[in-house]
Protein backbone atom coordinates (compact mmCIF):
# COMPACT_ATOMS: atom_id res chain seq x y z
CA UNK A 1 0.00 0.00 0.00
CA UNK A 2 1.41 3.43 -0.87
CA UNK A 3 2.44 5.51 2.13
CA UNK A 4 -0.22 8.15 1.45
CA UNK A 5 -3.00 5.57 1.69
CA UNK A 6 -1.51 4.14 4.84
CA UNK A 7 -1.39 7.63 6.30
CA UNK A 8 -5.01 8.29 5.36
CA UNK A 9 -6.02 5.04 7.03
CA UNK A 10 -4.06 5.90 10.16
CA UNK A 11 -5.63 9.35 10.34
CA UNK A 12 -9.12 7.98 9.68
CA UNK A 13 -8.62 5.60 12.61
CA UNK A 14 -7.68 8.37 15.06
CA UNK A 15 -9.89 11.14 13.66
CA UNK A 16 -12.96 10.50 15.87
CA UNK A 17 -10.98 11.37 19.02
CA UNK A 18 -9.35 14.46 17.52
CA UNK A 19 -10.55 18.00 16.90
CA UNK A 20 -8.30 18.50 13.91
CA UNK A 21 -5.47 16.80 12.04
CA UNK A 22 -2.91 18.96 10.29
CA UNK A 23 -1.33 17.61 7.12
CA UNK A 24 -0.28 18.76 3.68
CA UNK A 25 -2.51 19.19 0.64
CA UNK A 26 -2.35 20.51 -2.91
CA UNK A 27 -1.18 24.08 -3.12
CA UNK A 28 -1.89 26.87 -5.58
CA UNK A 29 0.32 25.33 -8.24
CA UNK A 30 2.01 22.05 -9.13
CA UNK A 31 5.12 22.84 -7.07
CA UNK A 32 3.52 23.75 -3.78
CA UNK A 33 1.89 21.87 -1.01
CA UNK A 34 -0.09 23.80 1.54
CA UNK A 35 -1.13 22.90 5.09
CA UNK A 36 -4.61 21.36 5.29
CA UNK A 37 -6.69 21.08 8.40
CA UNK A 38 -8.69 17.88 8.47
CA UNK A 39 -11.81 17.75 10.58
CA UNK A 40 -13.87 15.09 8.81
CA UNK A 41 -13.36 11.92 6.78
CA UNK A 42 -14.27 13.81 3.60
CA UNK A 43 -11.22 16.05 4.04
CA UNK A 44 -8.90 13.05 3.84
CA UNK A 45 -8.92 13.23 0.03
CA UNK A 46 -7.12 16.54 0.24
CA UNK A 47 -4.03 14.92 1.77
CA UNK A 48 -0.77 14.91 -0.14
CA UNK A 49 2.67 13.67 0.83
CA UNK A 50 6.01 13.93 -0.88
CA UNK A 51 9.06 16.07 -1.54
CA UNK A 52 6.86 19.16 -1.72
CA UNK A 53 5.56 18.73 1.83
CA UNK A 54 7.97 21.35 3.05
CA UNK A 55 6.22 23.28 5.83
CA UNK A 56 6.87 22.31 9.41
CA UNK A 57 3.35 21.75 10.66
CA UNK A 58 4.46 21.64 14.29
CA UNK A 59 4.32 25.44 14.06
CA UNK A 60 0.53 25.24 14.29
CA UNK A 61 0.44 23.21 17.49
CA UNK A 62 0.97 26.20 19.74
CA UNK A 63 -1.63 28.20 17.82
CA UNK A 64 -4.39 26.16 19.43
CA UNK A 65 -5.47 26.12 23.07
CA UNK A 66 -3.69 23.36 24.98
CA UNK A 67 -6.99 21.60 25.59
CA UNK A 68 -7.70 20.95 21.89
CA UNK A 69 -6.90 17.45 20.66
CA UNK A 70 -4.70 17.83 17.62
CA UNK A 71 -3.13 15.40 15.20
CA UNK A 72 -0.11 16.45 13.23
CA UNK A 73 1.79 14.83 10.36
CA UNK A 74 5.53 15.23 10.77
CA UNK A 75 8.74 14.64 8.89
CA UNK A 76 11.80 13.61 10.88
CA UNK A 77 12.96 17.20 11.39
CA UNK A 78 9.46 18.37 12.30
CA UNK A 79 9.14 15.65 14.91
CA UNK A 80 12.09 17.20 16.72
CA UNK A 81 10.15 20.44 16.99
CA UNK A 82 7.28 18.53 18.58
CA UNK A 83 9.67 16.94 21.06
CA UNK A 84 11.13 20.33 21.90
CA UNK A 85 7.66 21.78 22.45
CA UNK A 86 6.89 18.87 24.78
CA UNK A 87 10.13 19.43 26.66
CA UNK A 88 9.18 23.01 27.30
CA UNK A 89 5.62 22.01 28.22
CA UNK A 90 4.21 24.23 25.50
CA UNK A 91 1.93 21.43 24.37
CA UNK A 92 0.18 18.62 26.22
CA UNK A 93 1.37 15.13 25.44
CA UNK A 94 -2.15 13.66 25.91
CA UNK A 95 -3.67 16.15 23.50
CA UNK A 96 -1.30 15.65 20.59
CA UNK A 97 -1.21 12.69 18.22
CA UNK A 98 1.86 12.54 16.04
CA UNK A 99 1.73 10.83 12.64
CA UNK A 100 5.23 9.98 11.44
CA UNK A 101 6.47 8.62 8.15
CA UNK A 102 9.86 7.91 6.59
CA UNK A 103 10.80 11.20 4.92
CA UNK A 104 13.09 10.99 1.91
CA UNK A 105 13.65 14.72 1.99
CA UNK A 106 12.01 17.84 0.60
CA UNK A 107 12.91 19.99 -2.37
CA UNK A 108 14.27 23.49 -2.10
CA UNK A 109 12.17 25.52 -4.52
CA UNK A 110 14.97 28.07 -4.89
CA UNK A 111 17.13 25.29 -6.28
CA UNK A 112 14.34 24.16 -8.61
CA UNK A 113 13.99 27.73 -9.82
CA UNK A 114 17.68 28.06 -10.57
CA UNK A 115 17.88 24.65 -12.25
CA UNK A 116 14.91 25.50 -14.45
CA UNK A 117 16.35 28.86 -15.39
CA UNK A 118 19.47 27.00 -16.48
CA UNK A 119 17.29 25.13 -18.97
CA UNK A 120 15.49 28.26 -20.10
CA UNK A 121 12.27 27.39 -18.25
CA UNK A 122 10.25 29.43 -15.79
CA UNK A 123 9.21 28.03 -12.42
CA UNK A 124 5.94 29.96 -12.48
CA UNK A 125 4.82 28.12 -15.60
CA UNK A 126 5.31 24.59 -14.30
CA UNK A 127 1.97 22.83 -14.76
CA UNK A 128 2.90 19.35 -13.62
CA UNK A 129 5.55 17.88 -11.39
CA UNK A 130 6.28 14.25 -10.71
CA UNK A 131 8.97 12.88 -8.45
CA UNK A 132 10.19 9.41 -9.18
CA UNK A 133 13.28 7.97 -7.59
CA UNK A 134 16.35 9.89 -8.66
CA UNK A 135 14.68 12.24 -11.09
CA UNK A 136 11.99 14.88 -11.10
CA UNK A 137 9.93 15.57 -14.23
CA UNK A 138 8.49 19.03 -14.71
CA UNK A 139 6.13 20.11 -17.47
CA UNK A 140 5.93 23.69 -18.66
CA UNK A 141 3.82 24.70 -21.63
CA UNK A 142 3.42 21.10 -22.81
CA UNK A 143 7.20 20.59 -22.78
CA UNK A 144 8.61 18.15 -20.23
CA UNK A 145 12.01 18.58 -18.64
CA UNK A 146 13.79 16.33 -16.21
CA UNK A 147 16.08 17.27 -13.34
CA UNK A 148 18.20 15.05 -11.08
CA UNK A 149 16.78 15.03 -7.55
CA UNK A 150 20.28 15.15 -6.08
CA UNK A 151 20.48 18.82 -7.10
CA UNK A 152 17.13 19.73 -5.62
CA UNK A 153 17.09 18.45 -2.04
CA UNK A 154 17.06 21.17 0.59
CA UNK A 155 20.42 21.59 2.34
CA UNK A 156 18.98 20.31 5.60
CA UNK A 157 17.99 17.04 3.90
CA UNK A 158 21.52 16.40 2.66
CA UNK A 159 22.76 16.40 6.23
CA UNK A 160 19.63 14.84 7.78
CA UNK A 161 20.12 12.45 10.66
CA UNK A 162 16.46 11.91 11.43
CA UNK A 163 14.57 10.79 8.32
CA UNK A 164 12.18 8.82 10.50
CA UNK A 165 10.26 10.73 13.12
CA UNK A 166 12.10 10.62 16.47
CA UNK A 167 8.73 10.36 18.18
CA UNK A 168 5.36 9.24 16.82
CA UNK A 169 2.10 7.72 17.92
CA UNK A 170 1.33 6.32 14.50
CA UNK A 171 4.13 5.48 12.11
CA UNK A 172 3.30 4.55 8.52
CA UNK A 173 5.64 2.98 5.96
CA UNK A 174 9.03 1.33 6.37
CA UNK A 175 11.65 3.09 8.47
CA UNK A 176 14.58 4.33 6.41
CA UNK A 177 17.21 4.08 9.14
CA UNK A 178 19.45 6.37 7.16
CA UNK A 179 21.78 8.84 8.81
CA UNK A 180 23.99 11.47 7.20
CA UNK A 181 26.95 13.09 8.91
CA UNK A 182 26.61 16.64 10.16
CA UNK A 183 29.88 18.11 11.37
CA UNK A 184 28.74 21.73 10.92
CA UNK A 185 31.11 22.14 7.98
CA UNK A 186 29.14 25.10 6.66
CA UNK A 187 29.56 27.01 9.92
CA UNK A 188 33.27 26.19 10.04
CA UNK A 189 33.74 27.30 6.42
CA UNK A 190 32.01 30.60 7.14
CA UNK A 191 34.09 31.19 10.23
CA UNK A 192 37.29 30.57 8.30
CA UNK A 193 36.71 33.90 6.54
CA UNK A 194 38.25 37.06 8.01
CA UNK A 195 36.14 38.84 10.65
CA UNK A 196 35.59 41.94 8.53
CA UNK A 197 34.36 39.81 5.67
CA UNK A 198 31.85 38.05 7.92
CA UNK A 199 30.51 41.36 9.10
CA UNK A 200 30.34 42.67 5.55
CA UNK A 201 28.48 39.51 4.55
CA UNK A 202 25.73 40.08 7.11
CA UNK A 203 25.59 43.74 6.33
CA UNK A 204 25.01 42.96 2.68
CA UNK A 205 22.49 40.19 3.39
CA UNK A 206 20.57 42.11 6.02
CA UNK A 207 20.29 45.17 3.82
CA UNK A 208 17.69 43.17 1.87
CA UNK A 209 15.60 42.39 4.97
CA UNK A 210 12.13 43.94 4.88
CA UNK A 211 11.32 43.17 8.51
CA UNK A 212 8.27 41.12 7.64
CA UNK A 213 9.02 38.72 10.53
CA UNK A 214 8.06 35.76 8.35
CA UNK A 215 11.08 33.95 9.80
CA UNK A 216 9.67 34.38 13.27
CA UNK A 217 6.14 33.42 12.37
CA UNK A 218 7.22 30.26 10.58
CA UNK A 219 9.40 29.16 13.48
CA UNK A 220 7.74 26.40 15.52
CA UNK A 221 9.64 27.48 18.64
CA UNK A 222 8.95 31.21 18.45
CA UNK A 223 6.05 31.11 20.86
CA UNK A 224 6.02 34.59 22.43
CA UNK A 225 3.71 35.83 19.68
CA UNK A 226 2.14 39.09 20.82
CA UNK A 227 4.76 39.46 23.54
CA UNK A 228 7.70 39.37 21.09
CA UNK A 229 10.28 41.82 22.36
CA UNK A 230 10.98 42.91 18.80
CA UNK A 231 7.63 44.67 18.78
CA UNK A 232 7.45 46.13 22.24
CA UNK A 233 8.03 49.82 22.80
CA UNK A 234 9.00 49.30 26.41
CA UNK A 235 11.73 48.12 26.39
CA UNK A 236 12.50 49.28 22.90
CA UNK A 237 14.94 46.60 21.76
CA UNK A 238 14.37 47.24 18.09
CA UNK A 239 13.29 50.69 17.00
CA UNK A 240 11.16 51.61 14.00
CA UNK A 241 14.19 52.80 12.10
CA UNK A 242 14.99 50.82 8.97
CA UNK A 243 18.75 50.62 9.41
CA UNK A 244 20.69 47.42 8.99
CA UNK A 245 21.49 47.50 12.75
CA UNK A 246 17.82 47.15 13.67
CA UNK A 247 17.26 44.35 11.21
CA UNK A 248 20.31 42.49 12.38
CA UNK A 249 19.41 43.08 16.01
CA UNK A 250 16.19 41.20 15.37
CA UNK A 251 18.08 38.25 13.93
CA UNK A 252 20.34 38.22 16.97
CA UNK A 253 17.27 38.19 19.23
CA UNK A 254 15.83 35.33 17.20
CA UNK A 255 19.09 33.36 17.34
CA UNK A 256 19.64 34.00 21.06
CA UNK A 257 16.14 32.97 21.98
CA UNK A 258 16.61 29.73 20.08
CA UNK A 259 20.00 28.85 21.51
CA UNK A 260 19.80 25.25 22.67
CA UNK A 261 16.23 24.97 21.40
CA UNK A 262 16.45 25.28 17.61
CA UNK A 263 15.78 21.98 15.85
CA UNK A 264 17.12 23.22 12.50
CA UNK A 265 13.96 22.61 10.50
CA UNK A 266 15.02 25.57 8.37
CA UNK A 267 11.58 27.16 8.29
CA UNK A 268 13.01 30.62 9.02
CA UNK A 269 15.16 30.49 5.95
CA UNK A 270 12.49 28.96 3.75
CA UNK A 271 9.92 31.57 4.76
CA UNK A 272 12.31 34.45 4.08
CA UNK A 273 11.01 36.24 0.99
CA UNK A 274 14.43 37.69 0.18
CA UNK A 275 16.51 34.59 0.80
CA UNK A 276 18.71 35.60 3.75
CA UNK A 277 20.64 32.55 5.07
CA UNK A 278 19.62 33.06 8.71
CA UNK A 279 19.76 29.38 9.61
CA UNK A 280 23.52 29.84 9.74
CA UNK A 281 23.23 31.93 12.92
CA UNK A 282 21.15 29.25 14.57
CA UNK A 283 23.42 26.46 13.43
CA UNK A 284 26.33 28.34 14.91
CA UNK A 285 24.61 28.36 18.28
CA UNK A 286 23.68 24.70 17.93
CA UNK A 287 27.26 23.81 17.13
CA UNK A 288 28.38 25.49 20.34
CA UNK A 289 25.62 23.85 22.38
CA UNK A 290 26.71 20.48 21.04
CA UNK A 291 30.34 21.18 21.89
CA UNK A 292 29.68 22.65 25.31
CA UNK A 293 26.84 20.51 26.57
CA UNK A 294 26.77 17.45 24.26
CA UNK A 295 23.19 18.30 23.55
CA UNK A 296 20.96 18.31 20.50
CA UNK A 297 17.55 19.93 20.77
CA UNK A 298 14.41 17.90 20.22
CA UNK A 299 15.61 14.35 20.70
CA UNK A 300 14.48 13.38 24.18
CA UNK A 301 11.15 14.69 25.52
CA UNK A 302 12.39 14.22 29.09
CA UNK A 303 15.68 16.14 28.68
CA UNK A 304 16.16 19.66 29.98
CA UNK A 305 17.35 22.39 27.59
CA UNK A 306 20.95 23.19 28.59
CA UNK A 307 20.36 26.90 29.01
CA UNK A 308 17.61 26.24 31.53
CA UNK A 309 20.00 24.23 33.67
CA UNK A 310 23.54 24.37 35.05
CA UNK A 311 26.25 22.31 36.66
CA UNK A 312 28.22 23.62 39.60
CA UNK A 313 31.40 22.55 37.87
CA UNK A 314 31.12 23.01 34.13
CA UNK A 315 33.39 20.58 32.35
CA UNK A 316 33.85 22.52 29.15
CA UNK A 317 33.65 26.17 30.14
CA UNK A 318 37.01 27.73 30.71
CA UNK A 319 35.76 30.66 32.73
CA UNK A 320 39.06 31.83 34.14
CA UNK A 321 40.86 31.50 30.85
CA UNK A 322 41.68 35.08 30.01
Amino acid at each position, binding site marked *: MPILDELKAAIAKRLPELDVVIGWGKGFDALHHTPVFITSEADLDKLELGPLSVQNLATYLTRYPKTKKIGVVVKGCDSRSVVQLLQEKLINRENVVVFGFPCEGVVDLEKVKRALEGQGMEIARVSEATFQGERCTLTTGGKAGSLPMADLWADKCNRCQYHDAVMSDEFVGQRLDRKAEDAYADVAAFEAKP*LAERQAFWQEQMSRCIRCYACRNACPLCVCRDQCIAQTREPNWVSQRTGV*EEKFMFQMIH*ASHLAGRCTECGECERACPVGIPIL*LLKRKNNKEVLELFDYRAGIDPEAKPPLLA*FKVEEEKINERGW
Partner: protein
Amino acid sequence: MSKELRIIGFLCNWCSYGGADTAGVGRFTQPTDLRIVRLPCSGRIDPLFVLKTLTGGADGVLVSGCHPRDCHYSEGNFYARRRLEMVKRFLPVIGIDPGRFEYTWVSASEGQRWQTVVRGFTEQIHALGPIQRFGKDAAATAAQLAASHA
Protein backbone atom coordinates in the same frame (compact mmCIF):
# COMPACT_ATOMS: atom_id res chain seq x y z
CA MET B 1 47.51 54.53 26.83
CA SER B 2 46.07 55.96 23.61
CA LYS B 3 42.74 57.73 23.20
CA GLU B 4 40.03 56.50 25.52
CA LEU B 5 37.69 53.83 24.17
CA ARG B 6 34.21 52.99 25.30
CA ILE B 7 33.89 49.91 27.46
CA ILE B 8 30.70 48.95 29.24
CA GLY B 9 30.87 46.90 32.41
CA PHE B 10 27.85 45.02 33.71
CA LEU B 11 28.52 44.43 37.40
CA CYS B 12 26.61 42.46 39.94
CA ASN B 13 25.50 44.54 42.89
CA TRP B 14 26.69 42.11 45.57
CA CYS B 15 30.26 41.26 44.62
CA SER B 16 31.85 42.97 41.66
CA TYR B 17 30.28 46.38 42.23
CA GLY B 18 31.53 46.16 45.79
CA GLY B 19 34.90 44.98 44.48
CA ALA B 20 35.13 48.01 42.22
CA ASP B 21 34.23 50.17 45.21
CA THR B 22 36.91 48.50 47.31
CA ALA B 23 39.41 49.22 44.55
CA GLY B 24 38.35 52.86 44.62
CA VAL B 25 38.56 53.13 48.40
CA GLY B 26 41.97 51.43 48.25
CA ARG B 27 43.06 54.03 45.66
CA PHE B 28 44.12 51.45 43.14
CA THR B 29 44.57 53.39 39.92
CA GLN B 30 42.73 52.06 36.91
CA PRO B 31 42.08 53.11 33.31
CA THR B 32 38.99 55.27 32.83
CA ASP B 33 37.50 53.66 29.73
CA LEU B 34 35.03 51.53 31.66
CA ARG B 35 31.46 52.73 32.32
CA ILE B 36 29.71 50.65 34.92
CA VAL B 37 26.11 49.49 34.84
CA ARG B 38 25.03 48.05 38.17
CA LEU B 39 22.75 45.04 38.12
CA PRO B 40 21.10 43.01 40.88
CA CYS B 41 22.84 39.79 39.80
CA SER B 42 24.91 38.48 36.92
CA GLY B 43 21.94 36.20 36.31
CA ARG B 44 20.01 39.32 35.33
CA ILE B 45 22.22 39.75 32.30
CA ASP B 46 20.36 38.99 29.14
CA PRO B 47 22.83 37.91 26.43
CA LEU B 48 21.13 40.55 24.32
CA PHE B 49 22.59 43.28 26.59
CA VAL B 50 25.98 42.23 25.30
CA LEU B 51 24.96 42.01 21.65
CA LYS B 52 23.05 45.29 21.73
CA THR B 53 25.91 47.09 23.44
CA LEU B 54 28.49 45.84 20.98
CA THR B 55 26.43 46.54 17.88
CA GLY B 56 25.38 49.83 19.42
CA GLY B 57 28.93 51.13 19.30
CA ALA B 58 30.72 50.07 22.48
CA ASP B 59 34.24 48.84 21.86
CA GLY B 60 34.13 46.25 24.60
CA VAL B 61 31.82 44.65 27.16
CA LEU B 62 32.88 43.28 30.51
CA VAL B 63 30.59 41.27 32.73
CA SER B 64 31.57 40.58 36.30
CA GLY B 65 29.69 38.76 39.03
CA CYS B 66 30.21 36.81 42.21
CA HIS B 67 32.44 33.77 42.07
CA PRO B 68 30.50 30.60 41.30
CA ARG B 69 29.15 29.13 44.57
CA ASP B 70 29.18 32.64 46.10
CA CYS B 71 26.10 34.04 44.40
CA HIS B 72 23.86 36.15 46.64
CA TYR B 73 20.90 34.36 45.08
CA SER B 74 22.60 30.95 45.23
CA GLU B 75 22.52 30.10 41.54
CA GLY B 76 22.22 33.26 39.43
CA ASN B 77 25.76 33.15 38.20
CA PHE B 78 25.56 29.46 37.31
CA TYR B 79 22.89 30.23 34.73
CA ALA B 80 24.77 33.35 33.68
CA ARG B 81 27.93 31.35 33.06
CA ARG B 82 26.26 29.15 30.45
CA ARG B 83 24.56 32.06 28.72
CA LEU B 84 27.63 34.26 28.72
CA GLU B 85 29.79 31.49 27.32
CA MET B 86 27.22 31.06 24.54
CA VAL B 87 27.30 34.77 23.61
CA LYS B 88 31.06 34.80 23.62
CA ARG B 89 31.10 31.90 21.20
CA PHE B 90 28.37 33.47 19.08
CA LEU B 91 30.28 36.69 18.40
CA PRO B 92 32.67 35.37 15.71
CA VAL B 93 29.85 34.37 13.40
CA ILE B 94 28.51 37.93 13.25
CA GLY B 95 31.97 39.31 12.62
CA ILE B 96 32.82 40.65 16.09
CA ASP B 97 36.08 39.67 17.72
CA PRO B 98 35.21 37.50 20.75
CA GLY B 99 37.99 39.30 22.65
CA ARG B 100 35.71 42.34 22.86
CA PHE B 101 33.60 40.51 25.41
CA GLU B 102 34.81 38.88 28.61
CA TYR B 103 33.14 37.72 31.75
CA THR B 104 34.81 37.18 35.06
CA TRP B 105 34.20 36.88 38.78
CA VAL B 106 35.35 39.42 41.36
CA SER B 107 34.24 39.41 44.99
CA ALA B 108 33.61 42.51 47.10
CA SER B 109 36.88 42.16 48.94
CA GLU B 110 39.02 41.75 45.83
CA GLY B 111 39.91 45.37 45.10
CA GLN B 112 43.29 44.30 43.86
CA ARG B 113 41.82 41.73 41.53
CA TRP B 114 39.37 44.31 40.18
CA GLN B 115 42.28 46.53 39.26
CA THR B 116 43.97 43.65 37.42
CA VAL B 117 40.76 42.77 35.58
CA VAL B 118 40.05 46.33 34.45
CA ARG B 119 43.63 46.94 33.38
CA GLY B 120 43.87 43.63 31.54
CA PHE B 121 40.58 44.07 29.75
CA THR B 122 41.20 47.69 28.80
CA GLU B 123 44.56 46.74 27.35
CA GLN B 124 42.93 43.95 25.41
CA ILE B 125 40.35 46.32 23.93
CA HIS B 126 43.02 48.89 23.07
CA ALA B 127 44.96 46.17 21.28
CA LEU B 128 41.85 45.45 19.20
CA GLY B 129 41.20 49.13 18.57
CA PRO B 130 37.86 50.88 18.01
CA ILE B 131 35.03 48.63 16.87
CA GLN B 132 33.79 48.65 13.30
CA ARG B 133 30.19 49.61 13.74
CA PHE B 134 27.69 47.33 12.16
CA GLY B 135 25.62 49.03 9.53
CA LYS B 136 28.11 51.83 9.08
CA ASP B 137 30.16 52.16 5.94
CA ALA B 138 33.63 50.77 6.58
CA ALA B 139 35.49 53.34 4.49
CA ALA B 140 33.64 56.25 6.07
CA THR B 141 34.41 54.99 9.57
CA ALA B 142 38.07 54.57 8.74
CA ALA B 143 38.25 58.11 7.38
CA GLN B 144 36.47 59.43 10.44
CA LEU B 145 38.88 57.63 12.73
CA ALA B 146 41.88 58.89 10.82
CA ALA B 147 40.52 62.43 11.11
CA SER B 148 39.90 62.13 14.85
CA HIS B 149 43.45 60.89 15.42
CA ALA B 150 45.02 63.61 13.29
